[in-house]
């Protein structure tokens, strides 16, 4: 039972990291129809900026502010990078541009900081012991903050006028503008919010384990997959899909028979297989009803 709970808690931490990526992707996609996969690299870069200031100052606040500033800068850059693709309705090219931008950022990180792992916190990580399981402090912050933020975002998107504006911007930008909404500003704000959310994840990963140039990549790809198998317009589906893709591979690896010899390197392979099965069974999302193509 202890082992089961510990695996569950560890998976929840990873799952919540992926969830914040998926929610950021969902928000950005809601306003621009573009999947901004560079968020993984942005999260990594922001985490490295936190690391740089922390190494000099030792202050979480100063490092946090600096990292937040970088996240906002990347939000601004992302908006200007991808706005043209949104306006020209070249959304798949926007995806390619975002992918390339992400790879460029990761390469830059590799050049500046090199590829060896860097730790923000030296020594043993602070751990909270709940008796049946233990969780690191950064992990606990990730899970609690992540779930709270996701619930707030889901509530805003589904139940408030702001959410309705968000969802109608991609439908008809001109119509939304005629209602007095500055659609461009809303999009930029969402890009910034997405970068801040993922920057937060990047910093938490850095605090929880170690920084490497490509640490955000697998997480954003998993979030990207979760977005589609959950249903791109259904935040509930995105949440369920994220935890499905995070928990199932973890349990498969840890509870598989010894002769199968599944290890952590099998994880992305399982993620892909689960995605394939879900997309074939439910092409329009986990909670979709069968709809006709008209």
């Amino acid at each position: 039972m202890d082992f089961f709970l510990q695996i569950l808690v560890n998976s929840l931490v990873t799952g919540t990291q992926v969830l914040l990526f998926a929610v950021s992707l969902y928000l950005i996609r809601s306003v621009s129809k573009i999947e901004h996969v560079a968020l993984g690299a942005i999260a990594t870069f922001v985490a490295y900026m936190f690391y740089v200031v922390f190494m000099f100052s030792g202050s979480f606040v100063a490092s946090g502010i600096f990292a937040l500033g970088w996240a906002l800068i990347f939000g601004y850059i992302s908006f200007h990078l991808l706005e043209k693709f949104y306006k020209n309705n070249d959304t798949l090219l926007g995806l390619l541009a975002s992918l390339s931008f992400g790879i460029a950022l990761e390469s830059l990180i590799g050049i500046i900081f090199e590829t060896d792992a860097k730790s923000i916190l030296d020594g043993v990580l602070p751990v909270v012991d709940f008796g049946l399981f233990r969780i690191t402090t950064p992990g606990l912050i990730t899970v609690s903050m992540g779930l709270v933020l996701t619930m707030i975002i889901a509530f805003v998107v589904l139940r408030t006028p702001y959410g309705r504006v968000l969802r109608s911007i991609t439908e008809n930008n001109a119509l939304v503008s005629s209602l007095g909404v500055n659609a461009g500003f809303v999009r930029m704000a969402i890009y910034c919010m997405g970068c801040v959310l993922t920057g937060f994840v990047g910093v938490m990963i850095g605090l929880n384990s170690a920084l490497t140039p490509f640490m955000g990549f697998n997480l954003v790809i998993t979030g990207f997959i979760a977005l589609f198998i959950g249903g791109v317009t259904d935040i509930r589906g995105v949440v369920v899909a994220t935890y499905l893709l995070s928990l199932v591979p973890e349990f498969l690896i840890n509870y598989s028979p010894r002769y199968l010899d599944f290890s952590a390197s099998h994880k992305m392979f399982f993620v892909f297989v689960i995605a394939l099965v879900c997309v074939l069974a439910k092409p329009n999302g986990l909670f979709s009803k069968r709809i006709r193509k008209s």
Partner: protein
Amino acid sequence: MKRKKVLGIENLHVQLGQRMINEDISLEVYEGEIVGIIGPNGCGKTTFFNAISGFVPIDTGSVLINDQEVNNLSPNRRAALGLNRSFQNVGVFKELTLEENLMMAIENSEKLPWNWMLKSTTRSYVNEKIDEALEDVGLRGHKKSLAGVLSGGQLRLLEMQKLKLAGGDLLLIDEPTAGVSPVLRNELAAQIKGLSKDHGRTIVIIEHDLKFLFSLVDRIIVFVDGKKYIEGTPKEVQADKRLQEVYFG
């Protein structure tokens, strides 16, 4: 002499989402006829065409083309049976040239082999047909231009020529005069009449311009709220009081 039935619709029901768009529609169209379909906006006319051509699934009922049931056939298989259609937003590839658009129509109707352009006789034959078709609508000068440079009316004319070259027995034409000037409407009417009289096509047209339609068709079918309301000659339909209310208030 018994006329050949080209299109048979039996108790057609089409539902999209929670709404029944077409309800219990039955009709027949015979060889060589031009039949018009009219009705207020949102009464299911285009959905009806989409159901016949396979772009929307049918809930119950059947569609027969030349007495063959096509319910389970994909759109391209129905097209191969002799069904051709135009579209509300113009069925022409704007990123292909006028020549290429018409080439595709000829290739499919005459089942040309993949390497036809290597044979000079076939090349000359195809070129001649394309030139003739473009000359017919005054677009010969734009042969090598992308179709996207044409105006709305010119695109419609190109579409008519494409339909002419595509062959087939049955033609579904969806709102051909939408966005077209009065002058070009006369030309369009002439093209449609030519398709029927000179090429023996059976045509079903959806149209809102009643004057344009009544001068062309043999029979009119009126759709109201997804159902077939009335069917008759243009005179009979025009005299119907409820139709006058529906259209003119």
